[in-house]
């Protein structure tokens, strides 16, 4: 590219601007490495779906389908009543939501609309710490503390230490910080102009918070609730410890009794004995339950995602 004086300056070509070829080669190599890393999550998703569907199919094709609505889930006796554990899952998740929705939304409204900056700065990290407590810990807390102190007095008749109500409350405590944090983000993101307009019309703080900000953030709040529900359905350890993962369960709608959720049924299968890989259908049934669970949470997460996106578009 060096133009010698006196002569015509040499034409500038594309090649001159490209830089050294070793640098270009390195660029390409780095790009390919990153591309490979980026494809990894797609590969993992495909592997999850393939391994679930593969084993689940071998379960479906071998099991007597009428057994799926039998009276109980006892895989070691070849009773695969999936509707027992789906009901158990929904029951525990519903109890969890009854606890978590008021606590989480109340905390979110207070933190977003009422709390001073100082309170926010202290409370938000504390909520994050609560969110970081491992589920085994809450499971043991539910079994040892919640079950005797809260559930036992409110259930009629003698209650067993293992019960779905304690597990449900434990799940609720676990998902409260998640709901609070997502809902608070949504309400905090509502523009101040809406609040000011409301005050300008003479509205009180409570009217502004509950009738203006809350509805304006409703899609984020619904997303928070759906995410919480999805988390509650997928929660394993609390139920596994507190609801009595003895490997089987009769169909029941009474939260004061021991029960089984999809997740707890899976851990019970995996720990009851390490012969899950034996000849029976127990091993493929694990993947069938996993596929049902995966379907539930995926659907909920996709719906939540759609709601979250609506917030982003509005403001």
């Amino acid at each position: 590219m060096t133009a010698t004086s006196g002569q015509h300056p040499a034409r500038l070509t594309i090649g001159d601007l490209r830089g050294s070829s070793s640098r270009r080669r390195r660029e390409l190599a780095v790009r390919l490495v990153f591309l490979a890393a980026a494809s990894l999550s797609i590969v993992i998703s495909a592997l999850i779906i393939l391994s679930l569907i593969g084993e689940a199919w071998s379960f479906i094709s071998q099991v007597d389908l009428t057994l799926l609505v039998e009276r109980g889930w006892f895989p070691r006796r070849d009773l695969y009543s999936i509707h027992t554990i789906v009901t158990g899952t929904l029951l525990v998740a519903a109890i969890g939501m009854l606890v978590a929705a008021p606590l989480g939304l109340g905390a979110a409204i207070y933190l977003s609309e009422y709390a001073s900056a100082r309170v926010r700065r202290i409370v938000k990290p504390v909520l994050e710490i609560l969110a970081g407590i491992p589920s085994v810990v809450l499971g043991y807390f539910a079994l040892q503390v919640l079950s005797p102190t809260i559930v036992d007095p409110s259930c009629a008749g003698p209650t067993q230490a293992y019960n779905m109500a304690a597990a449900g409350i434990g799940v609720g405590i676990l998902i409260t910080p998640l709901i609070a944090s997502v809902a608070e983000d949504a309400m905090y993101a509502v523009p101040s102009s809406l609040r000011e307009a409301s005050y300008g019309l003479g509205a009180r703080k409570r009217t502004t918070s509950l009738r203006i900000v809350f509805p304006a953030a409703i899609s984020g709040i619904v997303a928070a609730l759906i995410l919480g529900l999805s988390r509650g359905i997928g929660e394993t350890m609390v139920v596994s410890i507190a609801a009595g993962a003895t490997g089987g369960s009769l169909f029941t709608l009474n939260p004061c009794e021991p029960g089984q959720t999809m997740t707890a049924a899976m851990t019970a299968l995996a720990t009851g004995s390490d012969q899950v890989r034996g000849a029976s259908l127990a091993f493929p049934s694990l993947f069938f339950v996993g596929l049902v669970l995966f379907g539930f949470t995926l659907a909920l997460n996709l719906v939540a995602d759609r709601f979250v996106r609506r917030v982003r578009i509005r403001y």
Partner: protein
Amino acid sequence: MASTPRTQALTAADVVRRSIEGGRVDWRSAAVEALLVGLLVLTLGVLAWLLVVVFVNGIPVLAERGLDFLTSPLAARPDEAGVGQAITGSLWLMGFVALLSFPLGIGEAVYLAEYARAPWFTRLVNTVVRNLAGVPSLVYGLLGLAIFVVALGDVLGPGSASGRSLLAGGLTMAILVLPIVIITSAEALRAVPGSIREAAFGVGATRWEVVRSHVLPYAAPGIFTGTILSMARAFGETAPLILVGAVIGGFNVKYESVLETLQGRYTALPTTVYDWARKPQDFAGNVYAAIIVLIGVLLVVNALAIYLRYRFERRW
């Protein structure tokens, strides 16, 4: 006439307010605010309750056993059982996360934030990663069970481990935390303003040079926070490890080489808590003591992440 104008103004405001409110107290507003405060206090109160229960029951065991509890292996008798093997196992799992999830996750985030040009690809990967982050951890355990324990079991965990090896657990955990690393890193990278990149491109840097010496250093605190959080997740996660066999584990003290350790049986701190929680009541003290160790580590790690985020939070 001795009052200052300031108090006069305040009095005027009070007079105005009184005339608007008509001397009534707004009970409903007060009730709403009290209700909201109550719900928040209840939430925090549960946390306090949990911590008090754990510490009251666990501290005596820790005080009595001291270092012995932290170093003893698993045992059948509660006064001999300790969390030595469990801590070692959990540290191994964190090692897998650090070695595999960090480079791969940050690499994927860099591609998404800096390299990807085709919008369909970015959108696809974003959707996939977000969904992966929402998949229940137990499903990752199933993945590990199908692939690392059953399909690759003879390679990863031959012999007595029957596939349920430390390698299987570590790889499962590395996959589990990958979405967290990707999401937090990509967020940190996107927060670096375009002007930084443009300045570097302007002086002739290639894309990799821009990323390596400008974007990554500025995004480092955010990425670091994400990696710490993923470590915490790997330390506290239980469910998938149960499926890939950590409960029945326990390190064999006779393992001679690193390879043998990797292919052998293992256990981790949260799975040990789970295992003890299902034992008779005389293990309760041990459970609480192990929970103190578990929560202690997690509190320190999480507090570090929160501190880093506030310390290095940067407004461009």
